[in-house]
Each structure stands twice: as C-alpha cells, then as structure tokens.
C-alpha cells in the first residue's frame, strides 16, 4: 500500500472519516506519521477552542480578583485556587465521573460525558484560571502614569478600560500568556488518558502514539514522531503569538519592547 493511499485512508481517521479499522500488523512509518498527525486534529481543536473562550473568562476573572466587591473578589480567588491548586488529571477524572453521575438527571449531560465537550469545558475552565492569574499579575503592574494620563484625558469607566487598561495589561501579560498557551496545547494530550473514552478509537495524537508503542513494543518510533509534531505546533504558536506581541508593542520605542522568549514552564 502506497503512502498516499495510507494518507487517504487514515489522514482524517481521528474524526471518523476514512478507514474504520486501525492497522494491526506490519506497521509502516507512513502509517505512524499519518495516524499520529491525524490525532493532532483533536489537540489543535481542544487547544484553540479552550484558549479562545478561556481568554474572555480569564479577563473577567482577573478583573474580578482585582475588584473591590468582596464577594466577586473571593469567588474569583477561589476559582483560581481550585483550578491551579489541583492536578488537571484529577480535574478530568472528577468532571467525567461527575457528568456520568448526572446523566440520569437530564439528557443534556449525556453530551457532556463525551470528550469533545466535557473535556473541553474542563480545559476551558483550567486555562481561564491559569491565564486569569497571569492577567491579574499584569493588571497589578499597569504603570500608574498610564492611568493618570487616562484621567487627564477625561477617560473613565468602560472607555478607559478598553483603550488603556486592557491593552496595557495584555501587553505586559503576553510573554507569560504565550507560555500558558503552549502548555495548554500540551495538556490536551491528557484528555484520552483520563476517563473520557475515545469513541470508535478516535483519539488524539498521544492516543495513537501509545497505541503504536503498545502494539510494536517499540517506543523509539511513535513518541519521537509525536514530539516532532508538538515541536512544530509550538513553533507555530510562538510565531502567531509573536505577531500579536509585535502589534501590542508597536507604540513603544524598539529597545523597550519585550521580546518573546520561549521559557521553561510547567505542566499541571
């Protein structure tokens, strides 16, 4: 079987298009590349959707944590504490079994116990908590002079937030937020190892990589392939976030701009 044929068969296998059965014997390199690459669709889906929704909740949480209202502040702090203080892996398990237990209550929860929505919600809340903390830190370090200048121009309330506070906060938070984005994409690999079933073997990249490693008993091929895919994904994220970073910093003299550096971060 030629490689093009394999790509035709398995290229979209992870979303259920193409060959139904996974290869069982005589695994070729092409099959491993194709299937693991196909699994990346899920990682990208989880990462992109969770990040883009999480961004807004994160802003809200950061504002909430900086709020003067005690109730709002405390609830934001608790939200951040719960999601940052516990392992994502346990959060997945808890959410999955929680949705399972709620299933008899309403048919709505039936959808939640499948990975595409249930895991997405956990990832969304999780990234909102982590980025909320980052944004809060940035919000605290918005220069006082900027706010005074805004007052002097007669800006207040929503216009001040939208035109001064928020862009400055984003600018300061961006390097850390880039790291958070990279690690969100990496933690999407946990989804199919934490209770959420891979329906009809439609899994993510790591799911297929471990499938091959189990079948061939040879970890030296599938995991480096997976690593290669993730390094490429990371580079793409860095370049996209770098472009945004450039736009956020465009008003600054070039020597004061923060450059995006890829720094060590953490798993959760």
């Amino acid at each position, binding site marked *: 079987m030629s490689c093009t044929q394999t790509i035709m068969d398995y290229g979209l296998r992870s979303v259920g298009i193409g060959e139904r059965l996974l290869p069982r014997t005589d695994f070729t390199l092409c099959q491993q590349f194709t299937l693991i690459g196909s699994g990346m669709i899920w990682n990208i889906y989880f990462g992109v959707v969770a990040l883009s929704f999480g961004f807004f909740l994160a802003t809200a949480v950061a504002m909430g944590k900086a709020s003067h209202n005690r109730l709002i502040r405390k609830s934001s702090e608790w939200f951040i504490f719960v999601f940052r203080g516990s*392992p994502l892996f*346990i959060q997945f*398990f808890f959410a999955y*079994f929680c949705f399972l237990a709620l299933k008899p209550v309403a048919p709505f929860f039936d959808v939640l116990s499948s990975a595409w929505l249930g895991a997405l919600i956990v990832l969304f809340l999780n990234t909102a908590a982590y980025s909320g903390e980052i944004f809060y830190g940035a919000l605290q370090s918005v220069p006082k002079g900027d706010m005074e200048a805004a007052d002097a121009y007669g800006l207040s309330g929503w216009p001040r937030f939208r035109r001064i506070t928020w862009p400055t906060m984003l600018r300061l938070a961006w390097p850390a937020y880039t790291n958070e984005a990279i690690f969100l994409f990496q933690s999407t*690999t946990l989804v199919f*190892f934490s209770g959420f079933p891979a329906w009809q073997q439609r899994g993510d990249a790591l799911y297929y990589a471990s499938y091959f490693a189990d079948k061939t008993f040879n970890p030296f091929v599938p995991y480096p392939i997976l690593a290669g895919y993730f390094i490429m994904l990371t580079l793409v994220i860095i370049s996209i976030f770098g472009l945004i970073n450039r736009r956020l910093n465009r008003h600054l003299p070039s020597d004061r701009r923060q450059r995006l550096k890829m720094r*060590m971060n*953490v*798993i*959760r």
Partner: protein
Amino acid sequence: MFDCTDPSQLSGLSWLMCYLTTGKHLSLYISVGTVLLLLAITAPTALLFGFGGASAARSRIPPLRWIGKGYIAVVRGVPDIAFFLFFVIALDQAFEWLRHKWKCPDWSEPIRQGSDFIVCAEAKLPLGTAPQWVHETYGFFVAVLTFAIVFGAFAANVLYGAMRAVPRAQIETAEAYGLSPRQTFWRILVPQMWVFALPGLSNLWMVLIKATPLLFLLGIEDIVYWARELGSAKTPRFTDYPHGDWRMWYFLALLIFYLAFTRVSEIVLDRIMGRLTRGQATLAGEAQRKAAA
C-alpha cells in the same frame, strides 16, 4: 470501636466507618504514602539531575555543553506525559538490553523480532521467578527514575538561570583573588545561586505535586487507581458494602487532598522565601526591612 462483623446490619455513620476501614481502603491510604514516598525520592534526585545538567550546560568542554543544553532543550515543546510514557518502556528495555549483552554474550538471534522485544531469560527484569513485591518495587523504581529525568530537565533550566543571575562582579572578584574556575564554581557561584533559584524551584515543587497522579499512567497502583477501583458500583454479590457509582466522590476527595497539599506547600515555601530574603539587597528584602522598622 465499631463492630464490623455484619455490615448489612449497620447503617449511617457506623456503616461508613466500617466501609472506610476495609482492607482495600487501607490499600488506598497506603498508596497516599506511595505518592509521598515518590515525592520524597524524586525531589532530591531531580535536583541532582538538574544540577548536573546545569553544570554541564555551563561547561567549557563543547560536547559536555551540548549534552547539557540538549537535555534542557528537549523537554521544552513536548508534552511531558509523552516523556513519561516513552521513558517507562525505553528505560525498561535499555536495562534489559544491557543485562542481555552482559549475561548472554553468545545469544545470536536479534532482539527485535517483528513486534517483539526478546532477551534471554536471565536478563529479564525483574526475573520471572521473582516474588510479587520485587515486580512492584521495580515498577516504582522505573517510575521514580522517569520522574527524575523529566523534572531534572526542568530543574536544570531553573538552576542554569540562577547561575547566570549571580552578579558578574562576584565571579570577577573571585578571579581577581586567583581562584581557579573550579574553586569559583564551588565556593562562589553555588552558594549564591540558591536565592535566585528558589522561586523557580518552589514552582517546580508545586508542579511535581500536581504531576504525581500521572503515576497511574506508568502502571503503578496509586491513588487514582484505587479511587477508580473502589468507587465503581458494587453489587451485594461481591462485597459486604454494596453501593452505586461513587467514583465522583472519590475523585472529589482526591481533588481536596491535592488542594490542601499544594496550599500547605505554598505557605511553607513562602516562609522559606521570607527567611532567605531577610537582609538581601532585593526589593522584597527592602520591603521586609521597612516593615520591621
């Protein structure tokens, strides 16, 4: 305290007390000990790996420097759960392969036959005849080594940054006093780098705590395993304590356990940081001085 001989007669709190002290639940509590043991062994080992990696990355010998930098760089950008899954098999096979070369030099067949990995019987790890606890200890050992390798790379990155954060003037002064590079490293650089390393290392400690449930993926019977096992629905046929699907509650308990653990760590680490910044010429140290005055 409670008479647990006939659970079907019990109800309410006494039933719960008896339920929570069955043999299997004791295994759950022991596995909490396993997690703590893992942390206690992994943290120093990873620090050691990290120190080695960071020193190698600063070395003046190019190949050593490349190895150090490569070690630090390789964990970035790749999900570490992939490393966990990779290293567990890879380490196991590496050990068996080395023992195979050593114990059975006159073995002619190839080791990889299709999808099988075959070594001679004497090289198997642990030996097929070994008792159960040896198998479990070996699995735990491989898991600890995996954790140490992955977190060692993180620690290496933190320590490498901390070494570079030590003021240049300190090194130059040491050179002016005629200390050799080795003496400068051990007497000037290493004692001073810890203050700079502590924020990164405490962050790493939190991450390490939150990575412990991944033991489950390495095939260890840890708290996640027992929570799934004990929480699933039980019928009266197989147990004296029948109940429905309680996995949600077990994982809620784990969630709270981890929250408490990270919170306590946070408080302790803040104390240590406060102690270390006392008298330091940093913003935090200055703030402490002002608060005291």
